[in-house]
């Protein structure tokens, strides 16, 4: 609690935490938007979401090692992950699309463990980062500092999200995806190849996670085990915002980023993961009581 007093003693510190939180939040929003897309269109909760983020991070890291600037690595990671997502759909995910929801959760959880262990066996358990070589902005006479890379990845995350939304709004495939989300059966009757739509949806989700992962690798670190917290964050953001609510996803993601940063500071970094998972449980239980109250009101 010592740190809590420190917060009140030094207001610029809370501004610092707030800014850092908002800048992380945009990256969370990308993965969460992908999860909402897959959930809404295919009816699958993809537990391997965080592992796709992790793989995007490794893609950016290896491109950086090969001499490509991490910022250029972001679109490349997205393209690589697009094809990986396509492959995952064609090999595994298509078999669980119309199954019971629990089976799809368990199958993607299995995928998540598989990818995590493969990454551990191939890349090793070491923590990696892709150095971007940007400096640090100093504000308010040194009281608040912002790494430029955080600012850049915030903008890049918003751009990537905007690109995906434009694709969904404008392109023919985007229209087909939205039609399938509204009513898969009707879409099939109207001649849309829903299997292809699902493959595109899953691949687009993987691509957006890949971009988000590349930004993570550039701003923070990657290691094989960072997946599950990203999945849980995405899930939380989606259940707070609801499916198909872009503004809500962004707002919830920024809020989560701030909350997590504050909690990490006040409780100590070793409890940050516990905070994320604990918050998930609290939100789920709160949501249930809220829904129950709403039902009583209607009755």
């Amino acid at each position, binding site marked *: 609690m010592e740190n809590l007093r420190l917060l009140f003693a030094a207001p610029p510190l809370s501004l610092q935490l707030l800014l850092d939180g908002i800048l992380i939040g945009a990256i969370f929003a990308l993965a969460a938007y992908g999860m909402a897309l897959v959930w809404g269109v295919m009816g699958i*909760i993809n537990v391997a979401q965080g592992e796709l983020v992790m793989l995007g991070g490794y893609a950016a890291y290896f491109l950086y090692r090969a001499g490509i600037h991490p910022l250029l690595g972001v679109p490349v990671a997205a393209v690589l992950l697009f094809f990986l997502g396509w492959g995952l759909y064609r090999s*595994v995910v298509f*078999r*669980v699309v119309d*199954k*019971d*929801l*629990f*089976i799809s*959760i*368990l*199958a993607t*959880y*299995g*995928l998540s*463990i*598989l*990818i*995590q*262990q*493969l990454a*551990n*066996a191939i890349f090793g358990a070491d923590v990696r980062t892709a150095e971007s070589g940007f400096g640090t902005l100093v504000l308010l006479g040194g009281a608040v500092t912002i790494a430029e890379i955080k600012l850049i990845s915030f903008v890049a995350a918003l751009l990537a999200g905007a690109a995906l939304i434009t694709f969904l709004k404008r392109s023919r495939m985007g229209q087909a995806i939205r039609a399938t989300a509204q009513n898969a059966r009707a879409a099939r009757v109207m001649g849309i190849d829903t299997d292809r739509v699902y493959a595109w949806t899953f691949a687009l989700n993987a691509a957006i996670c890949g971009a988000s992962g590349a930004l993570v690798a550039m701003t923070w670190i990657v290691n094989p085990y960072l997946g*599950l917290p990203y999945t*849980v964050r995405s*899930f939380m953001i989606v*259940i707070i915002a609801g499916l198909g609510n872009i503004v809500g996803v962004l707002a919830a993601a920024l809020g989560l980023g701030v909350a997590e940063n504050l909690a990490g500071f006040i409780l*100590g970094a*070793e*409890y940050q*993961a*516990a905070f994320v*998972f*604990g918050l*998930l*449980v609290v939100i*789920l*239980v709160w*949501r*249930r*009581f809220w829904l*129950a109250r709403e039902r009583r009101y209607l009755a």
Partner: protein
Amino acid sequence: MKLPAARALAAPAAILVLGLFAPALAPAYRSQMAFLWVMIVFALTWDLLGGQMGYNSFGNVLFFGIGMYACVVVQRDFHLGYYSALFVGMAAGAVLAVAVGALIGSGLLGLRGHYFAIGTLGIGIAAGELAGGWDFVGGGGGLVPPMYPGAVGGRETFFYYLTFAIAVITFPVLRWLYSGRFGLAINAIRDDEDKAEAMGLRTTRYKTTAWCVSAFFLGLLGGAVGNLIGFVDPREVAFASSTYGVWMVLMAILGGKGTLWGPVLGAAIFHVTQELFWKYLLGWQRVALGLLIVVIVVFFPRGILGWAREKWPERFGHGVDEAASEGGG
């Protein structure tokens, strides 16, 4: 089951005899065999919720970890003899697990379907992270239970029989629960919870009871396993969501969830496979296990007994008539 009593008892009796003499037959494999009983209890207690009640939990490992920590803390802080500390610790673990189950059950068991699955996943991992930061229970380094005082090699035999005893108690208790009103009630909850509630069933009470029964056996087991393994790590041993937490689900599904013998069968097959992976795929065994999870879930979601019941319904006590073709699936 309309089998004659003698035939129905043949399989449990054979397993009981085999289990009693197994350490003498294969002394080199005592700890692996002890883990077989551990796996069977895992699968059975998971199936009580997931298979029979339709609440697919990823967080049952929470109770296992609580039991493990409670037992080792009692062994550390109460100056009793080795055996009395162990048994008092296991009892304390079971009681604490049930208490926690009852406390969080009212909030968590109101979640349905996938919200319950993800919520329980979160609570299992959160518990591991909390234990990893709490210095009283050793923080990230975990705890080490006291040394076994008996002769060298006696430890494996002792813990073999301890886990065997827990499994031997768990199975008939669950069987007795399933055979009565309680079994019918939780099956009704699985089939249609709203309808069950509308029929006047106190669903929350039944759900919490089932959750607590599961917690009791897992809490009891946790203490024994902590001592069997010889150290308690918060994330890898006690609250091991990505190993034990998933395996219990997988074993029940592999054998056939919602059946009495399915989890036992699934646990046996899974455990043997896992040991073979350890022996022949060292370094890649976790990758192989991940692949195994995906393959089982994607290609074999009905499980062995589910498949057998579909193929030979008459052996499972269904006459081959309309009732079987409607209800047998």
